[in-house]
């Protein structure tokens, strides 16, 4: 029975994507349209373009910048968020400024950071940090603020203070919110990684794809779009794995509260 169920699940999960891919392959097989080349050509271009030197020269540095910016933003966001979230007065004072800074569409900061930091690696990382920071920061503030009062009192009664309190009470309680913020930050980070390279750069994933488009290397351009899509999917999948590990206690708690259904 379990084998049948697994087969059914696999069929459900893989069925439609496969059908769509086959449709794409067949429909585009002898496409004469300049902009919509056959899928076969796109896949050939994919192998020849991205699996060679470009992987090391363009793709990996882009991803490294993304992860660096994301990690820095996470660190800064959680640190500042815990500080702001722990003090009601500080929070009230910061709220309008934070609301405004968060509402600035992050891509418009690319021109600003070019002014400040030129067009090097520092600018790109700064752009990613500045976009990823707000979701993490604001969600951390919310999470820290909404911690359970009973646990708070328990900590006080047992004299749990300082580092231990921070680790076991504050960060623990805020972690579901922090993870939500980081998930939003990751998808913003990918956008900013691409945009910062499209706007002004001489290497990187976004730059290369725009070069292909300007040179009318259409199958190569499509292969770049596929690569960006795959990158998005892989990162979000990796994030979900990490989330399930970090938040397994929380998911179990929620399930227990809802009761077995």
């Amino acid at each position: 029975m379990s084998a049948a169920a697994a087969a059914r699940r696999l069929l459900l999960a893989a069925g439609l994507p496969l059908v769509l891919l086959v449709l794409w392959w067949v429909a585009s097989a002898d496409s004469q349209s300049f902009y919509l080349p056959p899928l076969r050509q796109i896949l050939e271009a994919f192998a020849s373009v991205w699996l060679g030197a470009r992987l090391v020269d363009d793709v990996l540095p882009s991803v490294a910048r993304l992860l660096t910016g994301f990690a820095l933003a996470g660190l800064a966001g959680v640190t500042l968020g815990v500080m702001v979230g722990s003090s009601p007065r500080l929070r009230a004072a910061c709220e309008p400024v934070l609301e405004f800074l968060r509402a600035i569409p992050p891509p418009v900061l690319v021109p600003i950071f070019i002014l400040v930091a030129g067009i090097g690696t520092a600018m790109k990382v700064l752009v990613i940090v500045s976009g990823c920071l707000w979701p993490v920061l604001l969600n951390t503030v919310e999470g820290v603020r909404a911690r359970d009062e009973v646990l708070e009192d328990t900590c006080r009664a047992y004299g749990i203070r300082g580092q231990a309190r921070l680790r076991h009470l504050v960060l623990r309680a805020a972690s579901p919110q922090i993870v939500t913020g980081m998930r939003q930050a990751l998808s913003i980070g990918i956008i900013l990684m691409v945009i910062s390279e499209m706007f002004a750069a001489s290497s990187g994933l976004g730059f290369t794809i725009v070069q292909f488009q300007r040179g009318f290397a259409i199958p190569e351009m499509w292969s770049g779009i596929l690569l960006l899509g795959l990158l998005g999917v892989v990162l979000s999948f990796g994030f979900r794995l990490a989330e399930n590990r970090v938040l397994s206690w929380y998911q179990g708690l929620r399930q227990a509260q809802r009761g077995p259904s």
Partner: protein
Amino acid sequence: MSPARSRRVLGTAGLLGFLALLEVAPRAGLVPDRNLPPTSRIAGALADELGQPSFWAALGDTLQGWAIGLAVAVAAGVGLGLLLGSVPALRAVTGSTIEFLRPIPSVALIPLAVLLFGTDLRSKLLLVVYASFWQVLIQVLYGVQDVDPVAMETARSYRLGRWARIRHVVWPTALPYALTGFRLAAAVALVLAITAELIIGNPGLGKEIAVAQTSGAVAATYALVVVAGLLGVGVNLLARALERRLLAWHPSARREAGG
């Protein structure tokens, strides 16, 4: 002072402090003022912009792309969400495809949009619709899943038809979720509209920012970024006001108003 009042005072103080810091830092030479002009000069540049018809035209272009794209995304997201959500077989078949398509960053479509539509409004719309559609769809799917089985059974035993069930049982449950999706989508749509203008060069605020930056008009660049931020705040406020209005009947909204 009442807590609400003191919060407002603190908030205003924070904002003024922030502006003062940005005024003093470049004047005291902490940061070079060609990188960060003092607040007063940014305000001056902003006043200049407000007097120019080209600024208002750009603002109108941005808002137009935002509104059309958002409307298309919401209509498609709600329609498809209700359909997929209420037919379990469809939901099961499409689940993995949605999970796969959703994380594809919409900026990946920029080269394609440029090739197909150039700097036409349609290239902006392609990005805006793709990015905001998923926000709405996912929320509506959550909402439909949240329908109370007892209410559904009741509706069935009273022989409500498919449409009546959607109208009276599914829709009221899904509405709060749909509005959350709308709020997220409204913010994302603005980001993508401005991104398209910045990178592709569709007319609008983003393009003005790129032009100001490349021509070295630093204060004007900052002024336009401030406008983009204010636009973002406005979009958030609008979406929240809509949420409050349409959900005035909902227990969560009533609890908030009561307490």
